[in-house]
């Protein structure tokens, strides 16, 4: 094991330990709720990141899949009294199925068409939750049951959500670092070239989209349970925009950038009252600033900074070829 991979392993362990012990060092239940909300959002955003950040398909309508997961959970676990765990898995499956059905026609479309199709999907889901009142409670909405012990308390629920978030982070990290992730990035940067070197472009895009649908379905179930009550007003189009903005601001093609984006964009408006007043205007301004100034995202700024700081330490040791960074640099050179 090289020293750098040891260091990243240690970092990962520290991060997991920090996330797992959070309930014992946050100030109060409200902050714990925020942390749980971030974890739930992250379950969705992490899957969406594969679509937006890696394969480059700009979906602004994942809030529709979130709504399907949440309503699915409320109906299965609440009305039909399925086991919450079984319902949770079923919501993941339903989310994946809906992702498949949405992706099958729309992923063939060019960028803007695809973005509009996902937006229309979110609007249709919102319309149907209202229109199918006997099933979804219509405008009044539905109560969503909590998870049983040990996940019923706020601490327990947070740990469940955090566990799901860590699991999905681990999964997407593996995907991103595999041959697969490279293939996805190739699709994002140049689909024609990717196809010509034998990347099954459409199949990969669809598969990733289905995965994101599953994570959105899971996130929806958790989100519903966290909110404890859902109405169509909960799943506004702006929420879908928010997920999307988190990824772009954090940085496409990275995992920790969007994580950072999710944490900051969820927590900031809650902490800083003037920002809350601006509401979605703030997200618009942040998105514009990032696109114009650092299109690679905030995460990239940190990468550059840490890359500048690091060589000084290396002077003391033997110089090791860092194949991964080299490859990355080469890739960036190419995409420029």
């Amino acid at each position, binding site marked *: 094991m090289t020293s750098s991979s040891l260091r990243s392993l240690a970092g990962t362990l520290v991060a997991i330990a920090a996330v797992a012990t959070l309930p014992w060092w946050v100030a109060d239940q*409200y902050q714990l*709720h925020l942390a749980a*909300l971030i974890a739930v959002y992250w379950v969705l955003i992490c899957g969406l990141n594969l679509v937006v950040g890696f394969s480059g398909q700009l979906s602004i309508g994942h809030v529709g899949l979130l709504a399907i997961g949440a309503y699915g959970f409320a109906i299965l676990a609440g009305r039909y009294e399925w086991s919450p765990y079984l319902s949770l898995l079923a919501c993941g499956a339903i989310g994946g199925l809906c992702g498949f059905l949405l992706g099958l026609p729309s992923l063939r479309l060019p960028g803007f068409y695809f973005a509009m199709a996902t937006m229309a999907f979110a609007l249709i889901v919102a319309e149907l939750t209202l229109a199918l009142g006997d099933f979804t409670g219509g405008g009044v909405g539905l109560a969503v049951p909590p998870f049983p012990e040990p996940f019923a308390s706020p601490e327990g629920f947070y740990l469940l959500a955090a566990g799901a978030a860590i699991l999905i982070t681990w999964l997407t990290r593996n995907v991103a670092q595999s041959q697969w992730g490279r293939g996805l990035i190739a699709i994002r940067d140049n689909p024609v070239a990717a196809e010509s070197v034998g990347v099954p472009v459409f199949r990969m895009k669809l598969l990733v989209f289905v995965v994101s649908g599953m994570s959105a379905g899971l996130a929806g179930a958790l989100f519903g349970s966290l909110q*404890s009550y859902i109405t169509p*007003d909960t799943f506004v189009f702006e929420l879908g925009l928010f997920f999307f903005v988190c990824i772009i601001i954090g940085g496409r093609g990275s995992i920790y950038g969007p994580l950072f984006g999710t944490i900051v964009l969820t927590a900031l408006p809650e902490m800083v009252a003037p920002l*809350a007043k601006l*509401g979605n205007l703030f997200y618009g301004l942040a998105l514009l600033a990032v696109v114009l100034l650092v299109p690679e995202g905030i995460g990239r700024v940190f990468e550059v900074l840490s890359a500048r700081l690091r060589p000084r330490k290396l002077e003391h040791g033997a110089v090791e070829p860092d194949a991964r960074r080299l490859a990355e640099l080469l890739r960036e050179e190419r995409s420029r």
Partner: protein
Amino acid sequence: MGFRTRSWLAALALVASMPAWAQSTIKIGWLSSLTGPLSSAAIAENKGVEFAVEEINAAGGVLGHKLELVTRDTAGDPTKAVSFAQQLVFSEKVHFVIGPVNSGETLATVPIVARAGIPNLIIGTIDELVDAKKYPRAFRAINTNRQWIEAANKYAIEVLKKNKVAIIGDTSGYGTSSAKTATELLAKAGIKPVFSTLVDPNKTDLTDEMNKARAAGADVIMPWSAATGLLGRLINARGDMGWNVPIVGHPSVMAPAIRKLINKPQYWENTFAAGPVSTTFRADGKLPERTQALVDKLRPRLGGGEIDYLFWWVALGYDTVKIVEHMVKTAGGTDPAAIQKAFETTRELKGAYATYSWTPEDRNGFPDLDITVNVANTLKDGSFKAAPR
């Protein structure tokens, strides 16, 4: 009397155990959608809330404690409302929560505030919001949707003698559920609507819907929607068609915003809506004393001229804080259990908006008697004339 003494003792014990209470404030959390698409009611209510807090504090506070208002703007978003509700009860440790304003948000926050055991004043109208068993400390100050709809139905059927009803709702959450309740309540009176439809609140033209209602033989139009744009188009469509059919429905058909949206002032004739007695001019042309007193006190703060809000929103906001004051005085402190008891034993508390009574079984404080039907185009100073009977 025995209860009084006991709660006083409990309060004394509380004071003894926490000397800080002597200097501390009574914190009121106020979840208000001051921005966003549903802000007009919240902005008006906020005027009342802020004024009441200032007035009470200027008079020395409650039991020697100042009130501290902790306002959070939810922008009408249930997710934000849930977060802010958690913040208020767990971080800010407020003693009361007022709001949120919209039913969609309130449905989501009530269980959270209930879990924390904090008294919650409900100002949303959807019937499902209060439940003495599930949410024992949630008490409603506003009327229910059912009360609005029943009053309007009764007026259409018994006074106007119309029974060919056309129901028009909008496709928002509030609109669909209200239209459904309206249909159910009409069915109880043995009436099946001749025409019923839901319309996108942004639909540009309602002439078609009105034509269909007319073709179906409707003799009264009952819109259940809070979207003023939609209601403005509805009234315009009726006027442009030259169809003199009465409109009886949601209070939003008499909102000040409608006056500006309609093509001609006379289009607003023959339009009625359910509204509270407190902002209804009596036969002698005067408002009820308690309302008039509040109007006089508030007028300088609302710009000095004619009041441009539905005044009962302001009165409701004012009352919520006065209710808090009353409950703290009755309970002798802010202990939630004592506050709950104080609510449950409150009979005929006279406010500017209504006369409230709560019981151990009923969390709805607004009496049926305090609702009436108004004539929309008599809007003056945010108040109305009563509909002719």
